[in-house]
């Protein structure tokens, strides 16, 4: 009889997952679309204060990540209470559907996709201002978008959240930070084999030439990222993880990295950063080991935005996930910046 009971239990548990409905809130937008463009179906979810005339388009990290975990778990609810956020997944990423073709995968194609999202938001909601907010890889994508003057004209403000505008610079900063940590671990006699492997690699690899070098240091950096003494403010409910399909979300990551492998070891944006004059906010986390604050400081210096319109904020409690420890502080910085240009 026990197997029957176990099967019945599983059936009930699965049925509960079928009953899941994302919560909706009065006065808040909760719209969902797919945008079809050049073989990709990009999911676009709009969440947040329907009375605001300033929209924020969120560019997820990766490449190959997803915005939808943040949309589902409402980790950015302190921001969406004030302004709608447009969550979308880039081609070959997250919930995106379409052709699994990397032949036309490039920064140009992905900025063109972003422009399609911008145009859709303009035509559907007619907002007075559109802000871009790019996290990690999204920081590169947003900067690449703003480097195009036609695109740039459509954007009121740029919010760079631990953005990697320069891959070699990010890699070098990450590499040095991990080395310091590895040295301390070896000296303390903790996980010596693991960290010594890193130190050996560090000594022999001095220049970013292959995407594997980027991924290698990235794995170590993710392992030490974040404030070890801080508690996360939001717990992702298990149902969120289950419904978001962790397997599906990461399933194309290798493919997209293969498609962008040349781009990920290049540095195309630093020479054109001074042409970008968009009001900009750079938010970086003190405990970020993946895109360390040094990268944000460099971007802040390199961007052509006048001094009175650019801001650099170091969040003292955060790692790479910038809204995980003190989301209200994060939201406060974002909404204060948006308010300056409304």
């Amino acid at each position, binding site marked *: 009889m026990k*197997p*029957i009971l*176990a*099967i019945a239990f*599983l*059936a009930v548990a*699965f*049925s509960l*997952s*079928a009953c*899941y*409905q*994302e919560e909706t809130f009065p006065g808040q937008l909760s719209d*969902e*679309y*797919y*945008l*079809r*463009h050049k073989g990709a*179906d990009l*999911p676009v*979810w709009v969440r947040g204060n329907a009375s605001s005339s300033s929209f924020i388009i969120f560019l997820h990290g990766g490449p190959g990540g997803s915005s939808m975990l943040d949309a589902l778990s409402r980790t950015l609810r302190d921001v969406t209470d004030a302004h709608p956020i447009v969550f979308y997944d880039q081609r070959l990423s997250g*919930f995106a*559907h*379409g052709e*699994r073709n990397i032949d036309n995968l490039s920064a140009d194609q992905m900025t063109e996709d972003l422009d*399609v999202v911008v*145009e*859709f938001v303009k*035509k559907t909601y007619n907002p007075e201002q559109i802000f871009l907010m790019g996290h990690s890889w999204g920081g590169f994508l947003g900067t690449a978008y703003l480097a195009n003057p036609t695109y740039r004209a459509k954007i009121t403000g740029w919010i760079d959240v631990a953005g990697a505008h320069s891959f070699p610079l990010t890699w070098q900063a990450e590499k040095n930070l991990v080395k310091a940590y590895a040295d301390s671990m070896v000296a303390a006699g903790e996980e010596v084999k693991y960290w010594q492997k890193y130190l050996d690699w560090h000594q022999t690899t001095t220049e970013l030439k292959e995407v594997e070098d980027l991924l290698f240091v990235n794995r170590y950096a993710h392992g030490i990222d974040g404030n070890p003494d801080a508690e996360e403010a939001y717990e992702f409910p298990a*149902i969120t993880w*289950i*419904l978001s*399909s962790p*397997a*599906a979300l*990461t*399933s*194309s990551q*290798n*493919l997209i990295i293969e498609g962008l492998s040349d781009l990920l070891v290049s540095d195309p944006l630093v020479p054109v950063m001074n042409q970008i004059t968009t009001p900009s906010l750079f938010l970086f986390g003190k405990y970020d080991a993946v895109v360390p604050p040094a990268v944000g400081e460099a971007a802040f210096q390199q961007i052509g935005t006048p001094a009175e319109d650019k801001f650099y904020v170091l969040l003292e409690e955060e790692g790479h996930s910038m809204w995980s420890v003190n989301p209200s502080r994060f939201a406060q910085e974002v909404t204060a910046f948006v308010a300056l240009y409304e």
Partner: protein
Amino acid sequence: MKRYFPILLLLMAQGFLHAQPDPKVSSLRLHYVANQIGHPGVQFAWEKPLWNSVKVKEGKKPGQRWQTLLVSPYLGFHSHVQNHRGLGAGAGLAYRFTTKRGLEYQAFVQGGYLHTFLANPVWEYQENGEFNQVNSPGRGSLGYGFGAAFGYNAWARGKAPVAFSARLAFNQPRQATSAMLPSLSAGVHYFLSTSKS
């Protein structure tokens, strides 16, 4: 639909009354599927034995051990909330071992076609800068998978001609993903026996 219910009941009752355990008999399987663990669906399959072997055990606790090789064409549906709905068809090849206590252990491979329909309206960007809402025909994908199942065969114990099972499968719809996506399912098999006791 209501008028067919008594007929269905009669057909099933016939199986319950007259069935004799027989590993050569086909079965219909209806499973509740949790595609990628969290996305609900159903799968309906016809399981046809291709080969079987019966080992009769005598002694204090007599019984039969069955080994069966099955082919199982299936139809399935799942819904990924806020993302897509999927319709699938294919066939599996399975090896099943049934103990004299009615416990079933099974390993299988399968291949098939999955068609996904997006769960939200699709807007297409036009060259003139406008967006048109389009009727999306969905996208197809061929794939393969493998897995294992565990179950209880009541019929092998001389009871009703039904079995219950839970399956864990890994599938890769090749045009949709490069990952092996897990799915859990659980449900019932009904043996299509007409043999008289």
